[in-house]
């Protein structure tokens, strides 16, 4: 059925149709609770991309979602469903915090390198155990990564409330603030003429996220390892026949996936909060699933989908303030529907579109024949 679709329809048209379907269904929900869906859409768009303030937050969220989306996408290429982004990103946050609290780093440029290593290492380590259990013991990786999300959350609460807690923080479980020297420059520091406010959360890790996109593209389509990951994902027996070790690919793909997701903490922990707080992830690990699905696991697609979800998250926050009786959780509904249409109901959307293309193609052929 896929062969009957041109490539552009597969990577552009179908995700767009899915998005429109998700928006229509959410619009119906909004209308059913007695609100104006078009007003809601206007506030969403205006709140996210209508001002420099909005853009600052939109791109900040986008940065998070690029990292988690890329991570999920790399695992998808090896046909592994990494649902443990929440835990891996939280552990990435721990890695960042430990590096910045205990290493005397003189400047942010050095600190971002050290902290990235810490974040990627901790994120990868948290993905390593489920990966090992999948590869060696056949434990279903979806279930183990879900379990590891909960274990991570308990571990973080324990560490923050008993071990890393600063004396006199007023009882709120968080670490001490990182030193001023390692503060990442934000969009205002870099380009004050663009109109970002002094406190905008958008910071240099956005560029790190873009670099990660290029890295993943090169890894998947331009290296031997990427080829092995893709062929393993397409067909495990064929991969085995070609001499690709399933243990090695499962481990490596999950380590890269966890590492990329862990890097998210550079943006949220080092760039924005400047200390480790309870739940620094805020659902971004799950958004990564929607982003990877919608972006068809391609870095460019992931970037565009992350931008879309960044805008949704920022605009959704505005909805709560601007519209009476409306809450930001409508974003979760849109997110759920995007996942449902792109991931689970793919055949429902794809089959009719494929049929249309088939009839379109047959007509000229018949004319040429007669």
């Amino acid at each position: 059925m896929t062969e009957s679709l041109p490539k552009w329809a597969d990577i552009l048209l179908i995700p767009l149709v899915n998005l429109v379907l998700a928006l229509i269904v959410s619009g119906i929900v909004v209308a059913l609770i007695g609100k104006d869906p078009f007003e809601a859409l206007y506030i969403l768009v205006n709140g996210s991309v209508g001002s420099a303030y909005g853009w600052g937050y939109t791109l900040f969220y986008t940065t998070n979602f690029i990292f988690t989306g890329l991570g999920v996408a790399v695992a998808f290429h090896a046909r592994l469903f990494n649902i443990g982004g929440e835990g891996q990103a939280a552990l990435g946050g721990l890695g960042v915090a430990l590096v910045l609290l205990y290493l005397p780093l003189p400047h942010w440029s050095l600190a971002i390198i050290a902290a990235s290593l810490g974040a990627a290492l901790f994120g990868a380590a948290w993905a390593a155990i489920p990966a090992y259990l999948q590869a060696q013991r056949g434990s279903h990786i979806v279930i183990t990564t879900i379990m590891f999300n909960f274990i991570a959350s308990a571990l973080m609460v324990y560490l923050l409330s008993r071990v890393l807690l600063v004396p006199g923080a007023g009882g709120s479980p968080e670490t001490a603030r990182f030193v001023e020297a390692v503060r990442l420059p934000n969009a205002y520091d870099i380009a004050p003429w663009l109109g970002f406010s002094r406190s905008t959360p958008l910071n240099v890790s956005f560029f790190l996220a873009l670099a990660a996109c290029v890295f993943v593209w090169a890894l998947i389509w331009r290296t031997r390892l990427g080829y092995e990951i893709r062929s393993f994902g397409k067909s495990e027996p064929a991969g085995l026949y070609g001499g690709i070790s399933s243990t090695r690919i499962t481990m490596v793909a999950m380590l890269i996936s966890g590492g990329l997701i862990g890097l998210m903490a550079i943006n949220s922990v080092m760039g924005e909060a400047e200390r480790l707080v309870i739940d620094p992830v805020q659902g971004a690990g799950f958004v990564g699933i929607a982003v990877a699905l919608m972006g068809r696991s391609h870095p460019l697609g992931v970037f565009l989908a992350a931008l879309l979800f960044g805008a949704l998250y920022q605009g959704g926050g505005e909805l709560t303030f601007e519209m009476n009786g409306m809450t930001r959780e409508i974003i979760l509904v849109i997110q759920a529907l995007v996942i449902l249409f792109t991931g689970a109901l793919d055949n429902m959307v794809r089959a009719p579109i494929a049929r249309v293309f088939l009839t379109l193609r047959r007509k000229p052929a018949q004319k040429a024949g007669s």
Partner: protein
Amino acid sequence: MDFLDIIQILDSSLRLATPLLLACLAGLFSERAGIFDIGLEGKMLASAFLSAAMAAYTGNVWLGLLAGVLASLMLAAIHGVASITFRGNQLISGVAINFLASGLTVVIGEAWFGLGGRTPQLEGAARFHEITLPFADAIRGVPFLGPIYADLLSGHSILVYVALACVPATWWILSRTRFGLRLRAVGENPAAVDTAGISVVGLRFAAVMICGVLCGIAGAYLATALSAGFVKEMSAGRGFIALAALIFAKWRPWQALGATFLFGLLEALGNRFQSLELMGIAIPTQFMQALPYILTVVILAGFVGKAIPPRAGGEPYVKER
């Protein structure tokens, strides 16, 4: 800790294990038929919301229960259509259902009641109340057995007893009826069932719908019996603990009772003690909270007794053409 303390802890374990047990049995039906369900959490949450909302609106808890079950059935139907009819990825469908429930419950709740996603406090006939089993007061004085009957077994809401009755019922349906045999077969080898002229699609839909009903009861119990009203995200990961219990129980009903009671006990202990002293080592509560998940990973890893899932689980069935 004396005898009455232990009775009290076991009593609250039973209370806390009930939603886990119902959700676990729900997952059992679905997964034994070959449909993975990580959307137990979402179905419980949706049911918790709608049952509390309807109970608050009508003042009748039974109407609330009905509405909760319907909400859960709606989500179960989406799961069925996505994973059986359109042969989509069952795990992704489950993830979507969880988010759908998280989002819709708050959006609708805020529009309906304007309480920041909560429902009003339920009182009187809008809640399930504790029922006292016959002769409970009369035999309380009997040593040992008296308190066990009067304080541990008696004095729960009707749904606790429903959940307990579901255990033998599930066992009987699965292992002593024709429907149960077919249901298990469809989870192991759907092609064989199809060859015998029985509808794979029909059986799997039936299993997914039974799962919906049980999750619905679990959610209604959370909002109208265990607490008095709905609050945002009140299922709090219980759907996933139930999933863990299902693996821990190796997809069997009596073991499911044991596993969910154990996890209920862990939660009860965690609620009661800030930290637990065991053989001179202080165990933090967070460890107790993480223990169900750690135990599940250990079981899954196969170091202590291997958990083997139904063979056709997670794979959509494609009829030969």
